[in-house]
């Protein structure tokens, strides 16, 4: 069997996957939960947000039901690879998607709340599995009403 043929076939399939990813229409959903700093510390101690964000999300939803946490915002943006959409609201989101492996999406993303000295933000580059929520980080508002709370930020890309 021709080794050159096999190599070309593998390279072609990889390139096709990358090109397909570049044209894809993406929906990026950011979900922000708020809980007291103490509750959040306990949650972060007891669960691994890195390896098991789904369990943490379920726990957060239970806390929301029992009014020990709340959903602050759920902004959604639509974009394609290479574009830089922005959204302003309770939280501001800026992001840029770049090509990644099939089934995954690379994101350069900033999530912010407040202005100037009062600003709290996360700035990071991460890779997410399509359709699976990923914990992005925390925000901690400095305004009086939000001072004792931590906001937990999750991102999901479809």
């Amino acid at each position, binding site marked *: *069997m021709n*080794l050159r043929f*096999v190599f070309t076939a*593998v390279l072609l399939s990889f390139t096709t996957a990358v090109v397909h990813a570049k044209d894809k229409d993406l929906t990026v959903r950011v979900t922000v939960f708020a809980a007291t*700093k*103490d509750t*959040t*510390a*306990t949650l*972060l*101690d007891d669960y*691994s*947000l*890195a*390896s098991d964000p789904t369990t943490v999300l379920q726990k957060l939803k239970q806390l929301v039901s029992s009014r020990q946490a709340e959903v602050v915002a759920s902004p959604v943006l639509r974009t394609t690879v290479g574009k830089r959409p922005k959204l302003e609201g309770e939280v501001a989101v800026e992001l840029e998607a770049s090509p990644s*492996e099939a089934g995954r999406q690379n994101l350069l993303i900033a999530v912010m709340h407040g202005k100037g*000295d009062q*600003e*709290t*933000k*996360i*700035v*990071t*580059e*991460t*890779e997410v599995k399509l359709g699976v929520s*990923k*914990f*992005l*980080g*925390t*925000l*901690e508002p*400095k305004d009086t009403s939000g001072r004792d709370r*931590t906001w*937990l930020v999750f991102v999901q890309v479809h």
Partner: protein
Amino acid sequence: MKTPLSFILAFTLLGFMTAHAADKSVLVRTCVYSVPKAAAAALLASPNLHTEPQSTIRTLRGMVAEKKASVVSNACVSGKLGNNLVAQAEFRCEARVEGGADGMFKLVIAVDKFLLGRKPHLLADLTVRRGETQFLGSLDDPAGGANTPTWILFVTVQ
């Protein structure tokens, strides 16, 4: 020399699988407790602080429950290895994580707090094991008096 096609395809597939399985994401969590100066001094003098930080954290959790201390910040950010990860909250944390082979990481982290023109800050260069919480350091307000708290910091890389 003829090489079986199945061997070539298996080797190529193994290569892709290994690259995909490699964990390129980390979560950096910095937990900051605010503790009255006298109590903080006693905790910081403990020989267990570096060897058994969980013991100190348990003590702090008890103090938080008794309202003798508080959780000031749960700054978290997840992102790719090798990138600058920023979580700006009550404290600003900027971290860069390298490595990951056999669960050990090299972490460079800077933590500071903006306080009306003053900026107590901490810079650390550590080797950390994935999932293990380490004592990061302590900070005091440079213009603070006896009644201002000490901030005790712990870091976890997941």
